[in-house]
Protein backbone atom coordinates (compact mmCIF):
# COMPACT_ATOMS: atom_id res chain seq x y z
CA UNK A 1 0.00 0.00 0.00
CA UNK A 2 1.28 3.36 -0.96
CA UNK A 3 1.89 5.79 1.86
CA UNK A 4 0.89 3.28 4.49
CA UNK A 5 3.48 4.57 6.91
CA UNK A 6 3.37 8.19 5.70
CA UNK A 7 2.18 9.82 8.87
CA UNK A 8 0.64 13.24 8.08
CA UNK A 9 2.74 16.01 9.55
CA UNK A 10 -0.17 17.50 11.52
CA UNK A 11 0.21 14.70 14.03
CA UNK A 12 3.74 15.91 14.78
CA UNK A 13 4.82 12.39 15.52
CA UNK A 14 6.43 9.39 13.91
CA UNK A 15 4.87 5.98 13.52
CA UNK A 16 6.89 4.54 16.39
CA UNK A 17 6.21 7.68 18.42
CA UNK A 18 2.48 7.13 17.99
CA UNK A 19 2.85 3.51 19.10
CA UNK A 20 4.74 4.57 22.23
CA UNK A 21 2.15 7.25 22.98
CA UNK A 22 -0.68 4.78 22.44
CA UNK A 23 0.87 2.24 24.80
CA UNK A 24 1.45 4.90 27.44
CA UNK A 25 -2.07 6.27 27.20
CA UNK A 26 -3.52 2.75 27.37
CA UNK A 27 -1.33 0.97 29.90
CA UNK A 28 -0.80 3.65 32.56
CA UNK A 29 -4.56 3.78 33.25
CA UNK A 30 -4.67 -0.02 33.56
CA UNK A 31 -1.85 0.18 36.09
CA UNK A 32 -3.59 2.96 37.98
CA UNK A 33 -6.83 0.96 37.86
CA UNK A 34 -5.04 -2.08 39.27
CA UNK A 35 -3.48 -0.08 42.11
CA UNK A 36 -6.89 1.36 42.99
CA UNK A 37 -8.73 -1.93 42.51
CA UNK A 38 -6.57 -3.91 44.95
CA UNK A 39 -7.59 -1.96 48.09
CA UNK A 40 -11.21 -1.60 46.90
CA UNK A 41 -11.44 -5.33 46.25
CA UNK A 42 -9.86 -6.09 49.61
CA UNK A 43 -12.49 -3.94 51.32
CA UNK A 44 -15.20 -5.81 49.39
CA UNK A 45 -13.75 -9.14 50.50
CA UNK A 46 -13.44 -7.97 54.11
CA UNK A 47 -16.90 -6.40 54.30
CA UNK A 48 -19.20 -8.57 52.25
CA UNK A 49 -22.14 -6.16 52.29
CA UNK A 50 -20.01 -3.62 50.46
CA UNK A 51 -19.64 -5.72 47.31
CA UNK A 52 -23.13 -5.45 45.71
CA UNK A 53 -23.34 -1.63 45.98
CA UNK A 54 -19.74 -1.25 44.72
CA UNK A 55 -20.57 -3.52 41.79
CA UNK A 56 -23.70 -1.52 41.01
CA UNK A 57 -21.97 1.86 41.09
CA UNK A 58 -19.03 0.67 38.98
CA UNK A 59 -21.37 -0.87 36.40
CA UNK A 60 -23.06 2.50 35.96
CA UNK A 61 -19.63 4.13 35.54
CA UNK A 62 -18.85 1.55 32.92
CA UNK A 63 -22.00 2.39 30.99
CA UNK A 64 -21.10 6.06 30.57
CA UNK A 65 -19.60 6.38 27.08
CA UNK A 66 -15.93 7.27 27.11
CA UNK A 67 -16.44 10.15 24.69
CA UNK A 68 -18.89 11.84 27.06
CA UNK A 69 -16.42 11.58 29.92
CA UNK A 70 -13.65 13.01 27.73
CA UNK A 71 -15.76 16.00 26.78
CA UNK A 72 -16.82 16.75 30.35
CA UNK A 73 -13.25 16.34 31.63
CA UNK A 74 -11.88 18.83 29.10
CA UNK A 75 -13.16 21.57 31.39
CA UNK A 76 -11.03 20.32 34.24
CA UNK A 77 -7.95 18.76 32.69
CA UNK A 78 -7.86 20.38 29.25
CA UNK A 79 -7.15 18.64 25.95
CA UNK A 80 -4.40 16.51 27.42
CA UNK A 81 -3.47 12.88 27.75
CA UNK A 82 -4.77 12.97 31.31
CA UNK A 83 -8.29 13.59 30.01
CA UNK A 84 -8.07 10.34 28.05
CA UNK A 85 -6.41 8.38 30.81
CA UNK A 86 -8.80 9.17 33.68
CA UNK A 87 -11.87 7.41 32.21
CA UNK A 88 -9.73 4.51 31.03
CA UNK A 89 -8.45 4.05 34.58
CA UNK A 90 -12.04 4.01 35.83
CA UNK A 91 -13.04 1.40 33.24
CA UNK A 92 -10.05 -0.75 34.24
CA UNK A 93 -11.08 -0.42 37.86
CA UNK A 94 -14.59 -1.62 36.99
CA UNK A 95 -13.26 -4.72 35.23
CA UNK A 96 -10.61 -5.49 37.83
CA UNK A 97 -12.55 -5.18 41.09
CA UNK A 98 -14.86 -8.18 40.44
CA UNK A 99 -11.95 -10.17 39.01
CA UNK A 100 -9.85 -9.62 42.14
CA UNK A 101 -12.77 -10.17 44.52
CA UNK A 102 -13.69 -13.47 42.84
CA UNK A 103 -10.05 -14.51 42.77
CA UNK A 104 -9.37 -13.73 46.41
CA UNK A 105 -12.65 -15.30 47.49
CA UNK A 106 -11.84 -18.50 45.60
CA UNK A 107 -8.91 -19.18 47.94
CA UNK A 108 -9.98 -22.28 49.93
CA UNK A 109 -10.66 -21.86 53.65
CA UNK A 110 -8.20 -24.67 54.48
CA UNK A 111 -5.41 -22.77 52.75
CA UNK A 112 -6.16 -19.64 54.78
CA UNK A 113 -6.40 -21.67 57.97
CA UNK A 114 -3.07 -23.34 57.20
CA UNK A 115 -1.45 -19.95 56.63
CA UNK A 116 -2.85 -18.64 59.92
CA UNK A 117 -1.67 -21.75 61.71
CA UNK A 118 1.80 -21.16 60.34
CA UNK A 119 1.75 -17.81 62.06
CA UNK A 120 1.04 -15.56 59.04
CA UNK A 121 -0.42 -12.21 60.01
CA UNK A 122 -3.28 -10.78 57.91
CA UNK A 123 -0.99 -8.62 55.76
CA UNK A 124 1.51 -11.35 55.06
CA UNK A 125 -1.29 -13.84 54.45
CA UNK A 126 -2.81 -11.45 51.93
CA UNK A 127 0.45 -10.77 50.10
CA UNK A 128 1.94 -14.25 50.15
CA UNK A 129 -1.11 -16.53 50.03
CA UNK A 130 -4.26 -14.83 48.79
CA UNK A 131 -2.80 -12.63 46.06
CA UNK A 132 -0.63 -15.32 44.42
CA UNK A 133 -3.54 -17.77 44.36
CA UNK A 134 -5.75 -15.07 42.86
CA UNK A 135 -3.20 -14.30 40.12
CA UNK A 136 -4.97 -16.25 37.34
CA UNK A 137 -8.24 -14.41 38.03
CA UNK A 138 -6.52 -11.03 38.32
CA UNK A 139 -4.67 -11.59 35.06
CA UNK A 140 -7.88 -12.68 33.33
CA UNK A 141 -9.29 -9.31 34.40
CA UNK A 142 -6.13 -7.49 33.33
CA UNK A 143 -6.37 -9.05 29.87
CA UNK A 144 -9.90 -7.74 29.37
CA UNK A 145 -9.01 -4.33 30.83
CA UNK A 146 -5.88 -3.98 28.69
CA UNK A 147 -7.61 -4.94 25.45
CA UNK A 148 -10.46 -2.50 26.04
CA UNK A 149 -8.10 0.26 27.15
CA UNK A 150 -5.94 -0.08 24.02
CA UNK A 151 -9.07 0.00 21.89
CA UNK A 152 -10.59 3.01 23.68
CA UNK A 153 -7.54 5.29 23.45
CA UNK A 154 -8.42 5.83 19.78
CA UNK A 155 -11.62 7.63 20.78
CA UNK A 156 -9.41 10.36 22.20
CA UNK A 157 -8.88 11.48 18.60
CA UNK A 158 -12.29 13.17 18.82
CA UNK A 159 -11.20 15.64 21.49
CA UNK A 160 -8.36 17.04 19.45
CA UNK A 161 -5.52 14.67 18.58
CA UNK A 162 -5.35 12.93 21.93
CA UNK A 163 -5.96 9.47 20.51
CA UNK A 164 -2.41 8.42 19.56
CA UNK A 165 -2.95 5.87 16.80
CA UNK A 166 -6.60 6.93 16.71
CA UNK A 167 -5.49 10.29 15.33
CA UNK A 168 -4.71 8.47 12.10
CA UNK A 169 -8.44 7.74 11.79
CA UNK A 170 -9.31 11.41 11.83
CA UNK A 171 -6.62 12.10 9.25
CA UNK A 172 -7.83 9.20 7.09
CA UNK A 173 -11.10 11.08 6.76
CA UNK A 174 -9.60 14.53 6.53
CA UNK A 175 -7.19 13.64 3.72
CA UNK A 176 -9.30 10.83 2.23
CA UNK A 177 -6.57 8.27 2.79
CA UNK A 178 -8.20 4.96 3.81
CA UNK A 179 -4.79 3.32 4.20
CA UNK A 180 -4.23 5.42 7.31
CA UNK A 181 -7.39 3.96 8.86
CA UNK A 182 -6.19 0.46 7.96
CA UNK A 183 -2.84 1.28 9.53
CA UNK A 184 -4.51 2.53 12.72
CA UNK A 185 -6.82 -0.47 13.12
CA UNK A 186 -4.16 -3.07 12.30
CA UNK A 187 -1.51 -1.50 14.53
CA UNK A 188 -3.95 -1.13 17.43
CA UNK A 189 -5.07 -4.74 17.06
CA UNK A 190 -1.48 -5.99 16.90
CA UNK A 191 -0.61 -3.97 20.03
CA UNK A 192 -3.61 -5.46 21.84
CA UNK A 193 -2.65 -9.00 20.84
CA UNK A 194 0.99 -8.49 21.86
CA UNK A 195 -0.02 -7.08 25.26
CA UNK A 196 -2.42 -9.99 25.69
CA UNK A 197 0.37 -12.46 24.91
CA UNK A 198 2.62 -10.69 27.41
CA UNK A 199 -0.05 -11.05 30.10
CA UNK A 200 -0.51 -14.75 29.31
CA UNK A 201 3.26 -15.15 29.64
CA UNK A 202 3.19 -13.24 32.94
CA UNK A 203 0.53 -15.61 34.23
CA UNK A 204 2.65 -18.62 33.34
CA UNK A 205 5.66 -17.09 35.08
CA UNK A 206 3.72 -16.00 38.17
CA UNK A 207 1.98 -19.33 38.69
CA UNK A 208 4.76 -21.91 38.42
CA UNK A 209 2.60 -24.48 40.27
CA UNK A 210 0.08 -24.62 37.42
CA UNK A 211 0.40 -27.30 34.74
CA UNK A 212 2.21 -25.90 31.71
CA UNK A 213 1.15 -25.79 28.10
CA UNK A 214 -2.34 -26.37 26.77
CA UNK A 215 -4.22 -27.83 29.65
CA UNK A 216 -6.48 -30.71 28.79
CA UNK A 217 -9.24 -30.52 31.30
CA UNK A 218 -11.90 -33.17 31.21
CA UNK A 219 -15.50 -32.19 31.54
CA UNK A 220 -15.60 -33.57 35.04
CA UNK A 221 -12.32 -31.97 36.04
CA UNK A 222 -13.55 -29.12 38.19
CA UNK A 223 -11.99 -25.88 37.11
CA UNK A 224 -11.41 -23.43 39.93
CA UNK A 225 -13.54 -20.36 39.28
CA UNK A 226 -10.40 -18.29 39.29
CA UNK A 227 -9.48 -19.64 35.89
CA UNK A 228 -12.80 -19.03 34.25
CA UNK A 229 -12.67 -15.95 32.06
CA UNK A 230 -16.46 -16.11 32.15
CA UNK A 231 -16.51 -14.95 35.74
CA UNK A 232 -14.61 -11.82 34.80
CA UNK A 233 -16.44 -11.32 31.56
CA UNK A 234 -19.83 -11.63 33.18
CA UNK A 235 -19.09 -9.25 35.99
CA UNK A 236 -18.57 -6.32 33.72
Amino acid at each position, binding site marked *: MNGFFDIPSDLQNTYSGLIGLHLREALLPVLAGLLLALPVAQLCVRFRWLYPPVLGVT*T*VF*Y*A*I*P*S*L*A*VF*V*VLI*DYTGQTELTVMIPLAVYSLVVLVPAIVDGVRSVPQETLAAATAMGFGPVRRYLQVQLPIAVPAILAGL*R*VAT*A*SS*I*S*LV*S*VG*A*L*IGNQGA*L*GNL*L*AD*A*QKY*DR*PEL*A*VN*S*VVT*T*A*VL*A*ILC*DAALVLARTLLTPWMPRG*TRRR*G*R*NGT*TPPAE*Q*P*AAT*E*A*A*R
Partner: protein
Amino acid sequence: MNVLNFVNAFFSDSAHWHGYDGIPQRLSEHVQYTLLALVLAAAIGLPVGLLTGHTGRGGNAVAFIATAARALPSFGLLVLIAVVVGIGLLPVMIPLVVLAVPPILVTTYEAVRSVDPAPVDAARGLGMHETRILFRVELPVALPLVLSGLRSAAIQVVSTATIAAYVSLGGLGRYIIDGLYQRDYEKVVGGATLVALLALVTLALFWAAGRFAVSPGVRRR
Protein backbone atom coordinates in the same frame (compact mmCIF):
# COMPACT_ATOMS: atom_id res chain seq x y z
CA MET B 1 -20.37 24.64 36.92
CA ASN B 2 -22.06 21.55 38.12
CA VAL B 3 -22.84 18.38 36.22
CA LEU B 4 -26.20 18.14 37.94
CA ASN B 5 -27.12 21.62 36.73
CA PHE B 6 -26.36 20.52 33.20
CA VAL B 7 -28.55 17.44 33.60
CA ASN B 8 -31.36 19.55 34.97
CA ALA B 9 -31.07 22.16 32.22
CA PHE B 10 -30.96 19.51 29.52
CA PHE B 11 -34.04 17.64 30.65
CA SER B 12 -36.12 20.71 31.43
CA ASP B 13 -35.56 22.23 27.99
CA SER B 14 -38.75 21.39 26.13
CA ALA B 15 -36.92 21.61 22.79
CA HIS B 16 -35.22 18.37 23.73
CA TRP B 17 -38.48 16.49 23.98
CA HIS B 18 -39.87 16.47 20.45
CA GLY B 19 -38.88 16.51 16.81
CA TYR B 20 -36.23 14.57 14.91
CA ASP B 21 -33.59 15.57 17.48
CA GLY B 22 -35.87 14.97 20.43
CA ILE B 23 -35.14 12.52 23.23
CA PRO B 24 -37.89 10.01 22.24
CA GLN B 25 -36.59 9.84 18.66
CA ARG B 26 -32.91 9.53 19.63
CA LEU B 27 -33.71 7.02 22.33
CA SER B 28 -35.64 4.79 19.98
CA GLU B 29 -32.81 4.95 17.42
CA HIS B 30 -30.33 4.03 20.11
CA VAL B 31 -32.46 1.10 21.25
CA GLN B 32 -32.80 -0.07 17.65
CA TYR B 33 -29.04 -0.09 17.03
CA THR B 34 -28.47 -1.85 20.34
CA LEU B 35 -31.08 -4.52 19.75
CA LEU B 36 -29.97 -5.20 16.19
CA ALA B 37 -26.32 -5.52 17.22
CA LEU B 38 -27.22 -7.73 20.19
CA VAL B 39 -29.43 -10.01 18.11
CA LEU B 40 -26.71 -10.39 15.48
CA ALA B 41 -24.03 -11.02 18.11
CA ALA B 42 -26.24 -13.52 19.94
CA ALA B 43 -26.98 -15.27 16.64
CA ILE B 44 -23.23 -15.81 16.28
CA GLY B 45 -22.11 -16.24 19.89
CA LEU B 46 -24.90 -18.37 21.39
CA PRO B 47 -24.93 -21.31 18.91
CA VAL B 48 -21.14 -21.48 18.73
CA GLY B 49 -20.80 -21.19 22.52
CA LEU B 50 -23.49 -23.81 23.18
CA LEU B 51 -22.01 -26.25 20.68
CA THR B 52 -18.38 -25.89 21.81
CA GLY B 53 -19.45 -25.94 25.46
CA HIS B 54 -21.55 -29.07 24.94
CA THR B 55 -18.88 -31.02 23.10
CA GLY B 56 -16.08 -29.57 25.22
CA ARG B 57 -14.08 -29.13 22.04
CA GLY B 58 -12.87 -25.96 20.42
CA GLY B 59 -12.12 -24.17 23.68
CA ASN B 60 -8.89 -22.83 22.26
CA ALA B 61 -10.64 -21.64 19.13
CA VAL B 62 -13.24 -19.82 21.26
CA ALA B 63 -10.49 -18.17 23.30
CA PHE B 64 -8.67 -17.19 20.13
CA ILE B 65 -11.75 -15.67 18.49
CA ALA B 66 -12.56 -13.77 21.67
CA THR B 67 -9.02 -12.40 21.98
CA ALA B 68 -8.91 -11.37 18.34
CA ALA B 69 -12.34 -9.71 18.51
CA ARG B 70 -11.41 -7.87 21.69
CA ALA B 71 -8.21 -6.63 20.10
CA LEU B 72 -10.09 -4.86 17.29
CA PRO B 73 -10.73 -1.23 18.25
CA SER B 74 -14.43 -0.36 17.91
CA PHE B 75 -13.89 3.23 16.98
CA GLY B 76 -11.14 2.37 14.51
CA LEU B 77 -13.31 -0.24 12.81
CA LEU B 78 -16.15 2.25 12.58
CA VAL B 79 -14.05 4.89 10.85
CA LEU B 80 -12.27 2.35 8.64
CA ILE B 81 -15.49 0.79 7.37
CA ALA B 82 -17.12 4.20 7.01
CA VAL B 83 -14.18 5.38 4.91
CA VAL B 84 -14.22 2.26 2.74
CA VAL B 85 -17.93 1.52 2.20
CA GLY B 86 -19.39 4.90 3.03
CA ILE B 87 -21.94 6.06 5.55
CA GLY B 88 -24.71 3.75 6.60
CA LEU B 89 -25.77 1.17 9.13
CA LEU B 90 -23.03 -1.32 8.21
CA PRO B 91 -20.08 0.69 9.64
CA VAL B 92 -21.95 0.89 12.94
CA MET B 93 -23.15 -2.70 13.12
CA ILE B 94 -19.81 -4.41 12.46
CA PRO B 95 -17.91 -2.81 15.39
CA LEU B 96 -20.87 -3.31 17.73
CA VAL B 97 -21.21 -6.99 16.80
CA VAL B 98 -17.45 -7.49 17.11
CA LEU B 99 -17.67 -5.87 20.54
CA ALA B 100 -20.60 -7.99 21.72
CA VAL B 101 -19.53 -11.42 20.44
CA PRO B 102 -16.60 -12.10 22.87
CA PRO B 103 -18.56 -11.77 26.14
CA ILE B 104 -21.50 -13.79 24.78
CA LEU B 105 -19.31 -16.49 23.22
CA VAL B 106 -16.86 -16.94 26.09
CA THR B 107 -19.49 -16.86 28.82
CA THR B 108 -21.80 -19.28 27.01
CA TYR B 109 -18.94 -21.68 26.39
CA GLU B 110 -17.79 -21.57 30.00
CA ALA B 111 -21.35 -21.75 31.31
CA VAL B 112 -22.24 -24.91 29.41
CA ARG B 113 -18.87 -26.49 30.03
CA SER B 114 -18.99 -25.96 33.78
CA VAL B 115 -22.41 -27.62 34.19
CA ASP B 116 -22.24 -30.38 36.79
CA PRO B 117 -21.56 -33.56 34.76
CA ALA B 118 -23.69 -35.81 37.00
CA PRO B 119 -27.13 -34.69 35.72
CA VAL B 120 -25.79 -34.65 32.16
CA ASP B 121 -24.64 -38.25 32.47
CA ALA B 122 -27.93 -39.17 34.10
CA ALA B 123 -29.81 -37.65 31.15
CA ARG B 124 -27.60 -39.53 28.75
CA GLY B 125 -28.20 -42.74 30.69
CA LEU B 126 -31.94 -42.14 30.43
CA GLY B 127 -31.49 -42.21 26.66
CA MET B 128 -31.96 -38.51 25.99
CA HIS B 129 -30.80 -37.30 22.62
CA GLU B 130 -27.74 -34.98 22.65
CA THR B 131 -29.79 -32.01 21.42
CA ARG B 132 -32.32 -32.58 24.18
CA ILE B 133 -29.53 -32.90 26.74
CA LEU B 134 -28.18 -29.55 25.62
CA PHE B 135 -31.51 -27.73 25.69
CA ARG B 136 -33.32 -29.53 28.52
CA VAL B 137 -30.46 -30.19 30.95
CA GLU B 138 -27.39 -28.10 30.26
CA LEU B 139 -28.98 -24.84 29.10
CA PRO B 140 -31.34 -24.43 32.08
CA VAL B 141 -28.46 -24.95 34.50
CA ALA B 142 -26.13 -22.69 32.54
CA LEU B 143 -28.77 -20.01 31.98
CA PRO B 144 -27.77 -17.58 34.76
CA LEU B 145 -24.22 -17.38 33.45
CA VAL B 146 -25.37 -17.23 29.81
CA LEU B 147 -27.65 -14.33 30.72
CA SER B 148 -24.83 -12.54 32.51
CA GLY B 149 -22.74 -12.78 29.33
CA LEU B 150 -25.58 -11.31 27.31
CA ARG B 151 -26.00 -8.62 29.95
CA SER B 152 -22.40 -7.48 29.87
CA ALA B 153 -22.52 -7.47 26.06
CA ALA B 154 -25.72 -5.39 26.18
CA ILE B 155 -24.20 -2.85 28.58
CA GLN B 156 -21.16 -2.42 26.37
CA VAL B 157 -23.25 -2.09 23.22
CA VAL B 158 -25.55 0.48 24.85
CA SER B 159 -22.51 2.53 25.80
CA THR B 160 -20.65 2.11 22.51
CA ALA B 161 -23.64 2.62 20.18
CA THR B 162 -22.98 6.32 20.81
CA ILE B 163 -20.25 6.15 18.15
CA ALA B 164 -22.96 5.75 15.50
CA ALA B 165 -23.38 9.51 15.65
CA TYR B 166 -19.80 9.97 14.47
CA VAL B 167 -20.76 8.60 11.06
CA SER B 168 -23.85 10.80 10.80
CA LEU B 169 -26.37 8.35 12.19
CA GLY B 170 -28.70 9.06 15.08
CA GLY B 171 -28.93 7.60 18.54
CA LEU B 172 -28.07 9.17 21.87
CA GLY B 173 -24.50 9.70 20.66
CA ARG B 174 -25.89 12.58 18.56
CA TYR B 175 -26.15 14.71 21.72
CA ILE B 176 -22.60 13.86 22.75
CA ILE B 177 -20.99 14.44 19.34
CA ASP B 178 -23.05 17.56 18.57
CA GLY B 179 -22.45 18.88 22.06
CA LEU B 180 -18.72 18.36 21.59
CA TYR B 181 -18.61 20.37 18.38
CA GLN B 182 -21.00 23.05 19.62
CA ARG B 183 -19.14 23.30 22.94
CA ASP B 184 -22.51 22.64 24.52
CA TYR B 185 -21.68 20.64 27.66
CA GLU B 186 -25.30 20.58 28.70
CA LYS B 187 -26.02 18.42 25.66
CA VAL B 188 -23.04 16.15 26.28
CA VAL B 189 -23.94 15.56 29.90
CA GLY B 190 -27.60 15.07 29.02
CA GLY B 191 -26.71 12.48 26.38
CA ALA B 192 -24.35 10.66 28.74
CA THR B 193 -27.03 10.62 31.44
CA LEU B 194 -29.52 9.11 29.01
CA VAL B 195 -27.02 6.41 28.03
CA ALA B 196 -26.32 5.59 31.68
CA LEU B 197 -30.05 5.44 32.40
CA LEU B 198 -30.56 3.14 29.42
CA ALA B 199 -27.81 0.91 30.80
CA LEU B 200 -29.56 0.80 34.17
CA VAL B 201 -32.83 -0.14 32.45
CA THR B 202 -30.93 -2.87 30.59
CA LEU B 203 -29.58 -4.19 33.90
CA ALA B 204 -33.11 -4.20 35.32
CA LEU B 205 -34.46 -6.02 32.25
CA PHE B 206 -31.83 -8.73 32.56
CA TRP B 207 -32.53 -9.05 36.26
CA ALA B 208 -36.22 -9.51 35.46
CA ALA B 209 -35.41 -11.97 32.67
CA GLY B 210 -33.30 -13.94 35.13
CA ARG B 211 -36.14 -14.03 37.67
CA PHE B 212 -38.55 -15.12 34.98
CA ALA B 213 -36.48 -17.61 32.97
CA VAL B 214 -34.13 -19.23 35.46
CA SER B 215 -35.65 -22.25 37.14
CA PRO B 216 -36.08 -21.79 40.92
CA GLY B 217 -34.04 -24.93 41.54
CA VAL B 218 -31.06 -23.45 39.77
CA ARG B 219 -31.48 -20.00 41.28
CA ARG B 220 -31.43 -21.26 44.84
CA ARG B 221 -27.88 -22.55 44.58
